[in-house]
Structures are given as structure tokens and as C-alpha cells.
């Protein structure tokens, strides 16, 4: 079973995504901040990360950078989910090696479709 890590500091978003991923047959882990996320990535090594950018401790960009710089981690798909909608922010995320950059608010159906495509 593919493993998906959901990282967000908003409890309702976290709740929704956890529900969605589970329902679509993935093994789900959640992290409420950057530190938790890094810990989870290093221990569990997920197949895909749904990653928020603005977080109190470590921001999403740094996490993505970390993932893409590690040989054993760089195959992990990173999908940014962010309220930052500026062209430069999106570009920055993609430049860091993210597979996708989805702006908030998003359609859960679209999101699922894209995640499923990436996971095949």
C-alpha cells in the first residue's frame, strides 16, 4: 500500500485530507508542522507528500528541498497545497522539484484524480 504524508497546520484541512486519502486506499500519516513532517519523512519514507508551505517552524519549501537533496528521498512525489498564489511562489515550488503545485482552495475531486495519477 502506497504511503502518503499530509502536512498542514490547519486541523480541518488535515482532517479532510486524511479522510480522503484513506478512502482512496492509501496509508496516511499526518504532520501538524515542519518538524513532525521531517521526522515522518525520515522514518517512514512516504511515496507522496501533500505539503503546505506556510507553517510555524519549518516551511514547506525547506522540506521539499531537503527531500529532493537526499538520494534515498528524492523519488518521493511532493505536491504543494498552498494559499500562496503568486506566480513566483508557484515557480519556486516547481523549481525545487515538486511534482505539482495546487493552490488553495482546491477541489477535492481534482486533487484525488491527480494524486491517483501520480501514484500509478
Amino acid at each position: 500500500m502506497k504511503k502518503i504524508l499530509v502536512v498542514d497546520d490547519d486541523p480541518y484541512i488535515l482532517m479532510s485530507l486524511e479522510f480522503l486519502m484513506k478512502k482512496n486506499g492509501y496509508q496516511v500519516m499526518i504532520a501538524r508542522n515542519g518538524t513532525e513532517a521531517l521526522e515522518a519523512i525520515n522514518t517512514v519514507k512516504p511515496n507522496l507528500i501533500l505539503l503546505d508551505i506556510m507553517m510555524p517552524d519549518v516551511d514547506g519549501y525547506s522540506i521539499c528541498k531537503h527531500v529532493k537533496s537526499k538520494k534515498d528521498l528524492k523519488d518521493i512525489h511532493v505536491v504543494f497545497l498552498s494559499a500562496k498564489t503568486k506566480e513566483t511562489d508557484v515557480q519556486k515550488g516547481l523549481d525545487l522539484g515538486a511534482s505539482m503545485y495546487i493552490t488553495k482552495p482546491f477541489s477535492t475531486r481534482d486533487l484525488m484524480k491527480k494524486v491517483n495519477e501520480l501514484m500509478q
Partner: protein
Amino acid sequence: MNKLFIAGCSILYLLLLFVIAYWVEQRRKKGMNILDKSWIYALSLAVYCTGWTYYGSVGRAVTNGPEFLSIYLGPSIMCALFIPLLRKLLRICKTQRISSIADLISTRYGKNYTLGIIVTLCCVIGIIPYIALQLKAISSSFQLISNTRQNIGADSWNDNTYLIAGILSIFIIIFGTRSVDASERHEGLVAAIAFESLVKLIAFIAVGIFVTYFLFDGFSSVFTSAHTAGFKEFFTLNNGFGNNDWLAMILVSMLSIIFLPRQFQVSVVENTNERNIYKAIWLFPLYLFLINLFVLPIAMGGKLLLGNTVSADTYVLSLPLHFNKPALSLLVYIGGLSAASGMIIVETIALSTMMSNHLVLPLIFSSKKMELNGEKNTVRNIKFSRRASIIVILLLACIYDKWIASSTSLVSIGLVSMAAVAQFAPATIGGLYSKILTRKGAIAGIITGFSIWFYTIIIPSFVNAGFIDSSIMSDGLFGIDWMKPQALFGLTSMGLLAHSFFWSILLNIGTLIAVSLVSQPSRQEEYQAELFVNIYKYQGITGGPGMWKTSANISDVNALLANFIGAARAEKLLSSYAQRHKIPFNQKEADPRIIDFSEKILTGVIGSASARFLVSSIAKEEEISIDKVLSIVRESQQVLELNKELKKNSLELSKAKEQLTEVNEQLMKMDVLKDEFLYTVTHELRTPLTSIRALSEILFDNPEMDEEQRQHYLEGIVKEIERLSHLITQVLNLERYESGRQKLNQSAVDISYLINGVIESINPLLKEKEIHLEFTQPSSMILLQCDKDMIRQVLYNLVSNAIKFVPDAGGEIKIVCRAEPDELQIWVMDNGKGIPEEVRELIFDKFFQAKNQTIQKPIGSGLGLAICKRIVEMHGGRIYVEPISPQGAKFVFTLPIS
């Protein structure tokens, strides 16, 4: 010393002057500037110090003590007053191309022939003896050094004078009459004069040092010896020569540094730049100080060592000769030669220009026979007339020297000449500053003053010489008692000079004013008066305001000018003038401004009166009324002012443009800020929207969800919607406060009551979170003018914040209300983790938390504190946060008690 050797040295020295003058002129032609012109100008002013200064000062000091200083004090004082007068004179002379003092006076009073003639004659009569004195100084110093006689300035005539005059006239003719335009400067010549000033200064100081430090042991030694020998006259001013003479000398010399023709020549005509004056006003007095420094020591030394064996006038040269110092003697002789020759050269050039322009040329031009027959002839005529004048002047000086000077006292001739030219002062200075003076007044004043000068100074010297019977001195003219030349109107208490100066100037001014008041000025005069008095007003007006409605054929104007300055140059000058001022030039009729300009060029060549005469002979002139003239003048004035106004306007425009740019930049900055705000707001909106959409989509897509989970999701949706609407309200509130649209709705509010109300509304939340809240009430009721709803909002925001930040267990909040003398303080304190020092001011910014991820994710809108700050400021209060121990934050806001 050998006569031939000395003669050779003299000629070599004069040749050196030739070389300097020639060299400078060549450099100038190539457009090279070698020397600082302001230095040359200041040094050339020292042509004031003549051979009379050089030899005579010592002689005068021997008889009259320090009195000689007064004629150097005068110019030094004048230098301080110099600037405004000289600047004005310069401006006038440059714009009107005036080349002599006679031209200046005649131009001021309507470009009149008569005045020019009178001034020129006065100058010639007054100055010729002065030139003669210089020739004599040269010839007798020559004799002295070549050991053929003992005294300078006494008895016999000798033929050397002719020779010296001859050599000098060649020099003057070569460098003084090269160009027919007399208003053009002779830069080579002036440089030579400046050089001469240096030579005489060095020579005089050399002999001074020789006497003071080699024959004696310094200044104090000379003075002590003179004192011991009982030479009282060196130390006092009062020695019976004339009690008031020193004052008269100061006054006369003050005027003479402008009105002596040679001084006018160097200070005005030859001046290249008004700025030169500023160096001269300190350098020239310094020069005078230096050249007089050793006069007293030399006089004392001479009297002590040589006594009466030689004339005191010769001490300067006799001392080194007596002590057998040939080299120094030669230097002193050359110094004297330079002092005298410098004076002769400049004075003769100035006088010859006057003579030629005001005596000879008017005769030629006004004679009906005279035809302007071609350029070469006219130029030749003018040059010839000027050269002849030079020779005539020097010849007259020789004759004076031979026939009269030998029997008159020489020392005071310089002063006598100065007193003569001082007669021009009232008409000139008055004419510069007052418009009421007329030509008739000027003529009457000058003639009166000059006649009295002649009668009170020259007649006595004629009597002394035995030309006139001495009965006039004791009985007065025709036996009339009050007509005694030295006691006019019974005034006897003054010295010769003071007496003469007093009466001549007094009656000169009196006549000038009296006649001016009763006579009518002509229109030309009124026009010139306006131009002189208000010269600064007319700067920049093309060609000056036109006095005449002139019409002339341009070919006539061209031909007239060509006669004097050559066809090529005339064509060039006129067309470039026309081009510069955008005047149509190729039509048949000449523009009045062209005619005016031509007249000015001619003025430089032949003087203003002749120029006026010639121009009016080719132009049909319609004299227009003074009202019209004034209106034309005023018009030009207005154009000038309009110009100024335009300049001012354009300046203001560019200032406005700058301001606009600034405002624009500010607006752009604000625009950026607004964009940022909007971005932050939408960003803040996105988070709850994301939750709402995700939660509701899940609910919609999953009808099989169990009831408990469904409830949980719906609750989330409601909370996020609340958050959303709260945010929107806050944004709108803040926007309203910031735009100033929200007005304060003030009323008297009981603060305790208000605080209690807030606590009550928030109580359920406090209970839920088990937070202890304590409110310390003020001792008495406080009524405060404020907007109740807004202050409640501030309190609510602060307390809500405190609730968010207190620890989960044991949270404590304290509210304190304190009345200070001029303000009310409300504290809201919590025992949370406190606010780090570096962000204590920043937390009041909009969305501070959202932008700074290092602290806890915002629980509120991110606008609460910004709104608080805005409200408190609207009330004229302050809001800030302080730390409290052991931990926590203390938010304070104040409201002024009015």
C-alpha cells in the same frame, strides 16, 4: 657714473617694456592668457605712484613730516567706497563704449561737444604740468646719477627732457594708437605698466632697506637718531604749512584715483572684468602701504647723513650714490624712471584720446569741407590726429618744463593737478545718481570750479615766478580786497590747497545745482540721464531702449562704419549683431537697433558727441516726445520683467513637477502596500475557504458517513465560516478607520461600567477555559469622552488575545484602570509567554502574525491589534506592550483626559 652707460640702461629698460607689451599682445592675439588679469589690473592702478611719489614723498616728509601719507590714505579709503561707484562707472562705460573722462561727462549730458571740449581743455591745462614734472624727474635723476648736477626738481632746464619725451612718444604711439577704437583695451601696454609698478616698488623698498638696515640698525635706530637730533617735524602733523591741507589732500586724492585721466584709463577703460575690482580693493592699498613704508626712514636718514648738502627730493638717489653703491643707485634710478615713465605713458594716452576725440575730430567732422572719403583716409586721419595729440602733449610738457616749471615749486604740482580734475567729480558722481543735473549746470559748475582752481592755485605760482605783478596777492584782483587769490572772500585760515579745494568744489557744486534747477534738459539729456542713473535696469535690453525713431539706409550705415573700422569688420560686426539679436538685416531700411549699435561702435572710435553727430547726418530722425521715450523704456522694462516672470514660472513648474514625481512615488509605494494588503487578505481568506470546500465536498460525496463524523464536519464548516465572516468584518472595519470615513461618536462614558460589560460578554469563554480574570476598579467613577463602541472593541480584542495566549492551565488575566493627571491608562495583563522585545512594535501591524511564521499560527484575523491601535490613535491615545515578571504581557492603552 658714465653718462652713456646710464643712457644705455635707460633705453634697455624701455626696450624691455616694449618686449613685455609686444609679447602680451602677441599672446592675446593667439587667444592665450598668461597672467592673472586681476593682478595686472591691481598693479596697473599703482600708476598712481609717480616719480613725484618716488622722489617727492621723501622731500615732503622732510618738510612736513607724515603729512605725505594723506594722499595715499585717500585712495585707500576710497577703495572701500570704490565698489558701487566703480561698478556703475564700468557698466556704463562698457555699454556705451566710453573711452575717457571727457567722453563720460559729455555722454551723460546729452553727448554734447561743448562739455567734451571744456573737460578736455581742463585736463590738458591741469595735467600738462604734472607730465612736465615727470619728465623733469627723469632728466634730473639722470643728471644726478651721471654726476652732472646735484639737485632734482630745481633750477635749470636741460635738453635731455626732449630726448626722453621723444623716446616715450614713440613707445606711446606704437602701443597706444594701434587700433582706432580707443575704447578697445591695450592689454600689452597695461601689462607693461603693471611691470613698471613692480619695478618701482622693488627699487624703493631696496633703497629703504639699504638706509634702514645698512646705514642704520633698523627702524627704531633711525627713529631714535632722528629724535635725538631733534627733528620734531617727522613726528608731528602740525608744522604751519597749512592746518587743513592734510584733510584737503585726503579728499583730493580720494577723487583723483578716479578722475585723473590716467587712473580713469587704467581703472575703467582698460578694465576687462568687473570682478577685477575685488582684488584691487585690498591689493592697491597694500601696494601703497609698502611703497610708503620706508619714506620716513629714508627722509630721516637723508637728513641725518646728508643734511642740506643736497635737496631732500634727491635723498632716495643721493643716499646710495653718496655711500658709493653703484648697483643700488642704478636700480633706484631705474625705479624712478619706471615711476615717471609709467605715469607719462598712461596719462598721455588718456589725454591724447580726449584731445583727438573732443578737440580735433569735432573740428574735422563739423567742417563742411570734410568728406568721408573712404576707409583708409578716415582711419589715417584719426590715427594721425591721435598721434599728433601725443606729440603735442609731450611738447607742451617740455615747454612748460622749460619756461614755467623752473620757477615754480615742483613738489605740489601733483596735488595741483589732482585738485584740477577733482572739479569733474560733482558733475560726474552727481550725474551717476541724480537725473536733475543738466548739461548747462555741468558746464557752469566745471567752469566755475576750474576758474577758482586756476585763480587760487595757478595765479599765485605765476606771481611767484614773476609773470604777474605781486600786487594781486596783497590787494586782490582790480584792488578788490575779497578777491585775493589766497584769501578768497576773506577766508585766510586755510592752507593753499585746502583754501583752493574748499572754494572751488563748494562753488562748483553750488553752480551745478543752481543752474541745473533753472535750466531745461534736452530730450537727449533726459534719455542719457535715465540710462546712467538706472543703468542696471537696462541690462540685457537689446541695443538699449531706442530714443529716436530713426530711419536710415543700411548701406549708409555700413558705409559710415566702414570709414572708421574697415568695410570687412563693419559688415561682420553688424551682421553678427543682427544675428545675435534676431534683427532683420538684409532689408533696405536699417533697424533702429542697428543704428544705435553703430553709434556705439563709433563712440568707441571718435567719442560720443562726434558719433552722435555723424549718425544723425545719415539718419532721418524723428524726435519723439519724452513721454513716448519713457513708454518705450517702460515697455522694454516690462518685457524684461515678463521674462523674469516667465523664468520664475518655469522654475515653479519644474518644482511642481518634482513634487508630482514625489507624490507619484509615494502613491506607487502606497499602491504596493495596498497590493500587499489585498494579497494578505485573500491569502487569509483562502485558508478557511479551503477547509469549508474540502469538508463540504467530502460530506456531499460520502452520504454513507456516520452521524458523529458528519456532525464533526459540519461543526468545522460553521466555525470556518464564522472565522471567514469575522475576518471580513475586521478588514472592513480597519479600512473604515484608516480611510477616516469612520467618525468618532463621542459621549461621556463610565469606564468601569464599560469594562464590566466586556468582561460579562466574554465570561462564558473564560469559564470554559478556566481562566481567572481580575479587574481592579478605580477608586472613583471615571467619566470619559470617547466612542463607546470602539473602546469596547479595543478592550474585547485585548482580552480575547490574552485568552488565546494564557497557558492552558492556570491562565490569569488582570485588568487595571488607572487615572493619571492627563490620561487614563487601561492595562490588560496575561501570564502567557509574553511578546519578544524585537516584535513589540511590529505586532500592531496588519497581519503581523501571518507574515512572521516564527510564532504561533494566527488564531484570529491578524487585524485585531492593528484595529486597536487605529482606534486608540483616533482618540489621541497610545497603545503599547510591556513584559511583566515572572512571565506575561502587559498591553497598555491610554486615553487623554481633556
